[in-house]
C-alpha cells in the first residue's frame, strides 16, 4: 500500500521537477526563471524525497530531514540569487511592468543603517 | 553501442586530462591554468574510479546482510580517490593563495607578462 502511495508522491514530485526545469529553460529572464525553478523544483524535490521515505519507511525520518532542508534552503538561495542578479545589474525582462526596486534606490544605502 | 559504453568513462577521464593539459599549455590566465590543473585532477579521479569499477557490482559497504563479497567493486581506488581529492583541494587552495600574491605584486594574471624570472 505505502509503496503505491510512495510512488505516486514520488511521481508528482518528479513531474514538478521536470516542470521546474522546463520553466528555467523557457522563461525569459533570470527572475522569472528563478520563480519557476524555486517553486517547482522545491516542491518536486520535497515530494519525491518524501515519496522515497514512504516507499522505504525506515528511511522516512532521514528523508524528512533532507526534504525539510531543501524546503528551507531553496528559497534562501533563490532569494540570494535574485538579489545578486539585481545587484550585479541584470536587467528585468523588457516586458516587465514595474520595477519598484529602481525607485527604491536606497536599497543599498538603507542597508547601512539596517541593523 | 556497448563499445562506446565501455569507452565512455575512459574518454571522459582522458578527455578531461587532455583538456586540462591543453589549458595549461595554451591559456595565459593564471586562474585558468589553475582550473586546468583541476581538470587534470578530476580526470585522474575519474580514471581511478573507472579502474576500480566492476560492472554490476555495488559499493563495498556491508551495511545490510544481503551484500556478498563477490558482488562489490574494488574499494582501493575509492580510497585512493578520496586521498587524491583532498590533495587536489590542498593544492588548489595553495595555488589560489599564491595567485593572489602574484596578482598583488604584478597587477596582472597573464603569465606571459609575469616573467620577472628567466634565463
Amino acid at each position, binding site marked *: 500500500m505505502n509503496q503505491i502511495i510512495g510512488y505516486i508522491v514520488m511521481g508528482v514530485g518528479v513531474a514538478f521537477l521536470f516542470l521546474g526545469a522546463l520553466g528555467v529553460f523557457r522563461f525569459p529572464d533570470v527572475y522569472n526563471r528563478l520563480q519557476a525553478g524555486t517553486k517547482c523544483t522545491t516542491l518536486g524535490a520535497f515530494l519525491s524525497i518524501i515519496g522515497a521515505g514512504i516507499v522505504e519507511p525506515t528511511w522516512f525520518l532521514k528523508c524528512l530531514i533532507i526534504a525539510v532542508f531543501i524546503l528551507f534552503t531553496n528559497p534562501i538561495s533563490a532569494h540570494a540569487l535574485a538579489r545578486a542578479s539585481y545587484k550585479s545589474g541584470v536587467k528585468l525582462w523588457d516586458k516587465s511592468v514595474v520595477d519598484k526596486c529602481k525607485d527604491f534606490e536606497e536599497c543599498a544605502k538603507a542597508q547601512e543603517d539596517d541593523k | 553501442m556497448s563499445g562506446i559504453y565501455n569507452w565512455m568513462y575512459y574518454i571522459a577521464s582522458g578527455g578531461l*586530462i587532455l583538456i586540462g593539459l591543453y589549458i*595549461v599549455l595554451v591559456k595565459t590566465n593564471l586562474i585558468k591554468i589553475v582550473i586546468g*590543473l583541476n581538470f*587534470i585532477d578530476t580526470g585522474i579521479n575519474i580514471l*581511478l574510479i573507472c579502474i576500480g569499477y566492476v560492472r554490476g557490482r555495488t559499493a563495498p559497504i556491508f551495511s545490510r546482510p544481503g551484500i556478498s563479497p563477490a558482488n562489490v567493486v574494488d574499494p582501493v581506488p575509492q580510497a585512493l580517490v578520496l586521498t587524491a581529492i583532498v*590533495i587536489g583541494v590542498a593544492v588548489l587552495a595553495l*595555488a589560489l593563495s599564491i595567485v593572489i600574491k602574484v596578482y598583488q605584486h604584478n597587477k596582472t594574471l597573464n603569465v606571459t607578462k609575469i616573467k*620577472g*624570472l628567466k634565463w
Partner: protein
Amino acid sequence: MVNPSLLIAVPLAFAFSIPLFGLVSKKIGKYIPVVALLINVGISFILIPQILKKPAVVSIGGWSPPFCINLVVGPLGVFLVTLISSIGLLVAIYAISYIKEEPTEKYHMLFLLLITGATGIVLTGDIFNLFVFFEILCISSYALVAYNKDKEGTEAAMKYLIQGSVGSSFVLIGIALLYGMFGTLNMADIASRVTSADPTFLFISLAFLITGFGIEAAVFPLNAWLPDAHSSAPSSISAILSGIAIKTGVYGVARMIYTIFNADGILTFIAFLGLLTLLIGEMSAFRQNDIKRLLAYSSIGQIGLIVFALGIATSLGVFAGLFQIVSHALAKALLFLAAGYMIYRVGSKSIDSLSGLGRKMPLTSFAFTIGSFSLIGLPPFAGFISKFSIVYAAIQVKKPIFLVFVVIALIATVIEAGYFFKVVQNLYFKEGKNVDNVTETSGYIIVPMIILVISIIVIGIHPQFITGLLKGAAGELLGRTGYIGWVLGGS
C-alpha cells in the same frame, strides 16, 4: 631495533605540535625542528649498522606487506634518510636565526613537514604512499618557496606549483595504470609481476612516472622550475631543495627504473639525459650574475651528473651516483647557506656585490670556497671522490658511447670550474664597494656551515666512512630480486 616508522612519526608529531609549544613560548617554535631532526639523525645512525646486516620491512597497521602499506628500510633507504635528516638538522639550526620573516612558526612547521615528506618518499614501499609523501614534499616546497611573499618568491612558487602539479598528476596517472594492470600498489609486488604485462603498456606507465618524478628531479627538459624556485626561496629552503628535494625526485626515477620496471633499455637514454642536463645546467650557470641563480643552475648540472652516473647502471656507476648525491648535498647546502647569509648581510644577490667579502666574512667565505671546490671536484674534498668514481664507472663499462659521454661531462665540469672559481675570486681578490659595515656572523648560522665544511673534508679524505653504506645502497638499487624478496619473502 628501533622502529623505522618513528622516522616519519616523530617529525610529523613535532610539526603538528609546534602551535602547542607556541602556547608556552613564542620562541620555542624554532627549536622544534632541531629537536625532531636530532632524534631522526639519532635513529638513522642507530639503524645503519642493523640495516646493513639485515634490511627491515616494517608494516604500518600490522598486516603483511602486499596488503598493507609498509616501509622498506634497506641500505638505500637508510642512507638517504641519514642524509635527509642530517642536512635537515643543519639547515634547521641555520634557520633558527636566519628566518626572521613572519610567520616563523608556520615556516618551521612547513620545513619539518618537507623533511617528513622526503623521509617518507625514500622509506615507503608502497607506490601510492610514495605519491602522498611526494605531494607532502612538493606542497610544502611550494609554500616555502613563496614564504618571503616577495615578487620573485611568489612568481617562482607559482611556476613551480604549475609544473609540479602537472608532474604529480603524471605520477598519479602512472600509479593508476599500474593499479589497473596489477591490482596492487606494493612496489615489490608490482615489481614481481611486471614481466607478465604488455611491454608497451608498461612503458607508457613508466613514461608517466619518470616524467612526473623527473620534474622534481629537475632532469632536462623538466627542470625549468628549478632556477626560479631555488633562487627565490629563502636560502635555507634553497639549501634543502638543492640538497634533498631534487634527490628524492632522482630516487623516484631510480626506483621506478631499477626496482619496479627493470627497464634496462632506457638506461643509456637516462644517462644521455643526465649528460644533457649537466651541459645545459653548467652553460646556463656560466653567465649568471645572480649568485643564487648560479647555484641553482649548478644544481641542475650536478643533478645531471648524478643521473648520468645512475644511468651507467653498473654497481660502480650507481655507487658513484650515490656518492655524488652525498657530496652535492653537502656542498650545495653549504653554498646556499653561506650565500644566503652573505646576501642577507650585503643586501644584494649579484655576484659583483659580494666582492671583498673574504675579509669581512672570513668564515662564511671560507665555507663558500670549500663548497665550490668540492663541487668542482678538487681533492681533498668529497666532490673529488665522487667525480673520480663517476669517470671511473663511465670508462669501466667499456662502451664507446659512455666514453664520449664522460668526455663531454668532463668538459662541462670545466665550465663549472670557470664560474665557481670566478665567484671565489670575487670574494677574496676583488675590492668590495659596499661591504664596509659587513661583519661576520656567528652562532647558529656558522655552526652548520662549519659542520658541513668538516664533513666535506672528512669524507673527501676518508671516504670509507660512507662507502660501505653506499655500496649496499647501490646493491639494493641493482638487485631488484633482493628487494622483492625482503618484502614478499615472508608471504
